[in-house]
């Protein structure tokens, strides 16, 4: 049997894409999930704050996942659990997905279209190269989250957290609630990499100090971590001599960034974007390989799951159009990041596939106040997005209407941060 769409990953992106493709009339869909249940990372994110955009109510991660899992089950979309995708190969009209699981061993699955929703993984201590020893007690924040929230293990009692990403902030509160003492959250940059609301409700609520422009210069302890040396950095991120301070701890959590998990994508020969570490995608999240779509954190790291679900709807629509042979492949616009902008997704737009508007997701490179993001085609200003404050931690959603874009035959849409016009 040849499937119409196979979805690589049963997290929020995969579930939402599957639901949309099925609603658009695609019959033979299969979701492949490596974990023992659907829902992906949401299963360990037991905190509240999910779904305010999508459902207009505040849900926890497992509750948000359950909403989509119910839709998948109600729509009768089949899925395989405990199933690891090893590789995907392109055979023109179809793709072959190579998978392994306990029941069937190695097997191949043939499909017309594939949606890549593998999500992302955390950067580890190896990736940031902290000097010192390599004792036990050093965890990524997400690993500690899984231990506490799902497995029921407490990683330690005296904690230091490096990196102020959202998972780090959430874990500072979580460990405090479970009786640990969080000494400090250290952030290399002069601003936090987490959402402001998480600084307020996770750190300020519990008097946990946030040390901005601080990093860890040494890990102490040979078997178990005994402490860390923390030092201040200057505006070039170089350690300032004489500012070091020893903080005793039995646990160090790292919340130092996420990397889209794209080994399968790269091996398959899909074209990548080194700004996002994800694939190059179009308005319906089509990659440069016909029939292959990608959405969610595997394309670019989102800060809200609501936007992942929203993006996955596009991929579900796109894959359904591809299966039906109605997806237009003529690229009208490419996008570019100008001053102040780190990346823009999608990187390409085929206008014939656009319904009402195109939402461009982007991140700024630094903190800006009272600036605007302007979109240009050539010298022509086509749209402006006002923001009181632009933070690298908060993704900018820039929606441009179809009729605005339609005025231009082709070209490059360039996004820049500029002074607001009075």
């Amino acid at each position: 049997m040849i499937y119409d769409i196979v979805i690589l990953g049963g997290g929020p992106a995969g579930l939402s894409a599957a639901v949309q493709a099925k609603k658009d009339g695609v019959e033979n869909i299969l979701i492949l999930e490596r974990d023992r249940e659907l829902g992906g990372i949401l299963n360990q994110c037991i905190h509240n704050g999910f779904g305010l955009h999508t459902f207009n109510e505040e849900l926890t991660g497992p509750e948000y996942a359950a909403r989509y899992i119910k839709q998948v089950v109600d729509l009768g979309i089949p899925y395989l659990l405990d199933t690891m995708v090893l590789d995907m190969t392109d055979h023109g009209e179809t793709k072959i997905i190579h998978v392994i699981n306990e029941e069937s061993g190695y097997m191949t699955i043939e499909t017309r279209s594939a949606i890549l929703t593998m999500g992302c993984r955390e950067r580890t201590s190896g990736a940031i190269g902290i000097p010192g020893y390599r004792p036990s007690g050093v965890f990524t924040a997400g690993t500690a989250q899984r231990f506490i929230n799902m497995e029921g293990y407490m990683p330690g009692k005296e904690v230091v957290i490096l990196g102020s990403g959202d998972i780090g902030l959430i874990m500072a509160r979580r460990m405090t609630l479970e009786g640990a003492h969080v000494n400090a959250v250290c952030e290399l940059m002069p601003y936090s990499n987490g959402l402001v609301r998480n600084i307020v409700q996770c750190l300020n609520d519990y008097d946990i100090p946030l040390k901005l422009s601080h990093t860890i210069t040494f890990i102490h302890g040979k078997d178990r971590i005994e402490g860390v040396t923390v030092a201040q950095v200057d505006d070039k991120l170089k350690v300032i001599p004489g500012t070091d301070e020893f903080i005793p701890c039995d646990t160090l959590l790292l919340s130092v960034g996420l990397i889209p998990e794209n080994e399968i994508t790269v091996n398959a020969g899909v074209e990548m974007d080194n700004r996002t570490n994800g694939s190059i995608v179009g308005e319906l999240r089509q990659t440069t390989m016909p029939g292959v779509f990608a959405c969610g954190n595997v394309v670019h790291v989102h800060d809200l799951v609501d936007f992942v679900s929203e993006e996955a709807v596009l991929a579900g629509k796109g894959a359904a159009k591809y299966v039906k042979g109605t997806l237009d492949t003529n690229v009208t616009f490419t996008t570019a990041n100008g001053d102040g902008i780190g990346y823009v997704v999608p990187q390409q737009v085929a206008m014939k596939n656009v319904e009402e508007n195109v939402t461009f997701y982007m991140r700024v490179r630094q903190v800006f106040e009272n600036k605007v993001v302007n979109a240009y085609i050539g010298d022509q200003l086509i749209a402006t997005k006002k923001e009181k404050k632009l933070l690298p931690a908060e993704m900018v959603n820039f929606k441009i209407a179809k009729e605005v874009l339609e005025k231009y035959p082709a070209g490059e849409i360039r996004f820049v941060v500029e002074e607001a016009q009075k």
Partner: protein
Amino acid sequence: MKKELTCITCPMGCQLTVVDKNDDGNFEVTGNTCKRGPKYAINELTNPTRVIPTTVVVRNGMLPRLPVKTAEPIPKGQIFEAMKAINQVVVDAPVKIGDVVIENLLGLGINVVSTKNMDRC
């Protein structure tokens, strides 16, 4: 009285300014982009509350822990007392989302409910 707050109701994180001109409890809130902002700000100054998401021990489930939350926000000052009470609880699978795990937590009239469907296995 004048106070600056960051709204935590949603991830927008609006910067709110609360002014109580005559210190008589007539709060004027600015900086919000939706109607939840003023409600949060006034609540935060008079009776700050938080929803507590945590876990309880579950037996015969797929996992050893079941995620739960307080069905309503509870007073900030009682968070650790609440954690103590919640950590005493042991439930048996199967459990459905919304099943009450603790009734009337600390006499607050607020239940603790499951946030996950967990089958027996």
